[in-house]
């Protein structure tokens, strides 16, 4: 006999990058802010464009569009500020997005072994299948291997 995990709706924020939509768990989102001045200084982390100042915090701007849709963003409408975990530490990162964001409740399907590390799950919403993003695999961090959310094995009741 196999027990299937109960259906559980979770909150996600849908973000738009060009023609595609992606999702992040809502509990990872700090805020959505209009584009502000990016401060740039010399560094060698190509995924980071620079930093913005937000509520007294200095927040790195990571354009993830190159990795997700194959091209960088020419225009941006907002910065979605999300919490990125580095081990026990959490920091804000600003993700440029090209359109409005939407909060939805949906059931997440866990990723398979063949999915990219940046996929932490899948949503089905309004006729679209949407990747739920794993920020740790998508944004840079020091000396770490991006954790991949391994799909839990279905519970199996043994006689």
């Amino acid at each position, binding site marked *: 006999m196999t027990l299937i995990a109960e259906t559980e709706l979770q909150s996600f924020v849908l973000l738009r990058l060009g023609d595609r939509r992606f999702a992040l768990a809502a509990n990872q989102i700090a805020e959505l802010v209009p584009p502000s001045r990016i401060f740039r*200084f010399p560094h060698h982390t190509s995924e980071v464009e620079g930093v913005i100042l937000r509520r007294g915090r200095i927040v790195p701007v990571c354009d993830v569009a190159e990795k997700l849709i194959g091209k960088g963003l020419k225009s941006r409408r907002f910065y979605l500020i999300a919490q990125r975990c580095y081990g026990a530490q959490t920091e804000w990162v600003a993700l440029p997005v090209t359109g409005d964001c939407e909060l939805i409740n949906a059931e997440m399907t866990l990723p398979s072994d063949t999915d990219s590390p940046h996929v932490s799950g899948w949503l089905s919403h309004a006729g679209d299948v949407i990747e739920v993003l794993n920020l740790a695999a998508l944004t840079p961090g020091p000396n770490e291997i991006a954790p991949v959310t391994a799909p839990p094995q279905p519970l199996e009741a043994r006689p």
Partner: protein
Amino acid sequence: MRPNSPIKTPAPRTEQIILFRVSGQLFAVSSASVQEVRGVDSLSGAAKEISQPTLHKVKHVVRRGENSVYVVNAAMHFGLPPAPPALVFVLRRTRTALLIDGIEKMASMTRLQALPLAFCHEERGWYRGLTALDQSVVPVVKPDGFLTPDELFLLDASLSQEADAEAIRVAEENAQGGIDTSIAQ
């Protein structure tokens, strides 16, 4: 009954910093880390050329007492477009002198934020952190981040080789001129 004494909030700790430019880019360094500020012209007599093929950012060395102080071109260090430097910072408790374009101003820093962890390459060794000043963000450099221990080792070795070569050359010249160096010494 005595009136309540006003609550005193401790004054925020501040650090004096020097804002300086390199190829148009603004940086900050703690003023306590700067031992001397000199014009590049004043170096020309004291500096000796040094060539380490893997370290293009260092072209000169200055003797200061027992130590050799290596002159680092800040623009090359940061990978910025070259610009003619006008000033040199001699950095305290390091063996580095830094070629910069100019000083912007002195300022007080009340908060230094650690470099966000998203920055994960050499820059982690370059900066102490970032500070917000006048609605702008300025990287605060690490004085000992301009030359790594490995780079200092390479430069010292190169300097030692050059000194040995120079000693041999002088000895050969003296031998050709018929001077007995053992007596001369």
